[in-house]
């Protein structure tokens, strides 16, 4: 498998609101994604998954580390080259109500990236726009309508059409189905799976919904307080998690199959505050297996049982 995007020791730090401490939103992340593959990134609010996505898109600058796209460091590119790279990396946002301009009609929304990058003539862009509508399963006469005339699922299709307009290689999907009803969720997930095959796309799929992530991802990275705590093949990580945090996450998902019902691991305490990261393993205050070493040493991500895990137990 050839690597499409890779992060090396990627970090993004911010000053906290009072300016006294440093918030490590993303802390030393190493990930790679092969062409045609999907990497799922899971974690709870404030774990840094959305910051990681913005770093990989080149929308914000890292504090340290590299993002390699097709082997090139995104940060070392000049403006023209970066502009070209940006065509190849697109994003679909969670909330289809907030991410589409309500004053633009669908035709303008989907054509905008083509215009910005000067693709084709006006007539060619129109043909392309109509093709995109077909591709995402929207009616051609949607072109003249405005976002408010569509349901949540249809709006997400508009967002996807816009994201694939420039024929990207990689799409970052930031909670793409979280705001949708169950029956609509599966329609959009099917569309994403179809498009991936047809257009040979690679996805970074960010979500808090582990069952969705498991379904679409080849590999999964679990984030906690800016760092990766477990990373490996999706089925392995989610079916036999090693890190106590991954175990708690997996057990906390409500399941429909009553027979398979397992004991829920209920973590004590709140999701941690990224402005106040505990010493040692960031997870130790909520961990039922915490040992003396966990309070002192930050566990490095290392190989164990066929995946990488950042925990002193292994």
């Amino acid at each position, binding site marked *: 498998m050839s690597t499409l995007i890779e992060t090396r020791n990627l970090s993004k730090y911010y000053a906290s609101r009072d300016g006294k401490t440093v918030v490590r939103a993303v802390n030393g992340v190493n990930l790679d994604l092969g062409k045609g593959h999907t990497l799922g990134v899971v974690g*709870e*609010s404030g774990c840094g998954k959305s910051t990681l996505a913005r770093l990989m898109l080149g929308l914000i600058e890292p504090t340290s580390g590299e993002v390699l796209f097709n082997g090139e460091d995104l940060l070392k590119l000049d403006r023209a080259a970066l502009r070209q790279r940006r065509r190849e990396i697109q994003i679909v946002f969670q909330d289809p109500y907030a991410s589409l301009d309500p004053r633009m009609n669908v035709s303008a929304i989907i054509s905008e990236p083509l215009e910005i990058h000067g693709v084709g003539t006006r007539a060619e862009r129109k043909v392309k726009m109509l093709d995109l509508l077909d591709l995402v399963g929207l009616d051609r006469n949607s072109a003249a309508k405005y976002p408010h005339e569509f*349901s*949540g*699922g249809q709006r997400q299709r508009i967002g996807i059409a816009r994201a694939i307009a420039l024929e990207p290689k990689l799409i970052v999907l930031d909670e793409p189905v979280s705001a949708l*009803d*169950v*029956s*609509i*969720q*599966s*329609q959009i*997930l*099917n569309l994403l*799976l*179809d498009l991936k095959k047809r257009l040979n796309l690679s996805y970074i799929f960010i979500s*808090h919904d*582990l*069952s*969705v992530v*498991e*379904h*679409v991802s080849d590999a999964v990275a679990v984030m906690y307080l800016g760092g990766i705590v477990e990373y490996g093949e*999706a*089925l392995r990580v989610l079916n036999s998690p090693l890190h106590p945090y991954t175990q*708690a*996450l997996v*057990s*906390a*998902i*409500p*399941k*429909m*199959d*009553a027979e398979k*019902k397992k004991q*829920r*691991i*209920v*973590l004590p305490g*709140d*999701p941690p505050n990224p402005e106040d990261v505990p010493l040692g393993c960031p997870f130790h205050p909520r961990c039922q297996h915490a040992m003396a070493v966990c309070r002192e040493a930050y566990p490095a991500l290392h190989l164990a049982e066929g995946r990488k895990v950042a925990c002193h137990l292994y």
Partner: protein
Amino acid sequence: MTNEPLLSVQGLSVSFNTEQGRLRVVDDVSFGLGSGETLGLVGESGCGKSVTAQTIMRLLASPPSFVEGGRILFEGRDLVLLAENHMQKVRGDRIGMVFQEPMTSLNPTQRIGRQIAESLSLHRGLNYSKAQPLVIDALRKVGIGNPERRLDQYPHELSGGLRQRVMIAMAIVCGPKMLIADEPTTALDVTIQAQIMELLQSLQKDLGLSILLITHDLGIVAEMCRNMIVMYAGRIVESGPAAKIFRRPKHPYTDGLIRSSPRRTEKGTRLFSIPGLVPSPGRRGRGCSFAERCPCVMEKCRAEVPVLASDTRHAFACWNPLP
């Protein structure tokens, strides 16, 4: 379920006056909630589940909403007919309510101790110093440590999970018989959701609460509820014991919802999906509202509304149910 349900909703229909005329959003809904029972009410956006709950609590302004028919019997009284001053004695005292978004349901300018004490002042005539021990007790019951210190905090100083616990404390402080929880964990992270579900289950056991749990998450219903109701486009399409419905749903809509879950599908393959969209009120046709999206549709489905069998424990409104 006991013989005499605590809450009995009978033939409830609710409409709204809109620019397009009068639209019915809850249509002939009937169900019962027994003492100490948790009943799950599931369905997608716009199915009428929240309107049903808000009508029980009489929280909807009228106009534009109207109860067009039916009764809501609670402790022997019909809440539909109750005068507003009597309803105020039920709301927050006999029936507590927990909403989805704790941040928008709490008053950001008031300390949480005083917010929780409000219903004690309203229903019991207690001033704040008399109410305080009861408030502290309620905070303890919902698992908030160091409650004396929390009294003086504002909602913004609390995390989402703690705010939801405060909401639950407000709902139970007067010792209600029944709790309506409308998507109580939807805005929370998975591990916090697990905490709140655990809390609701233990409160139910300790206080003997009946809970009407409204959610779109079938997994939560499977874990929390013995009985469930599935609503679609304003009507109940299936109801009965949750385990039975999950094992063998009879209504094609319920079946579609369960099958669209990624958990029931082989990894990476296309998911089952229900084609089309929920029809908006006013475009629901003469027959079954699900007919346009149904894989088992017959001629009769488009002409006649299927009736929900009322005598069996597992009921479904379908002319052509699954085997």
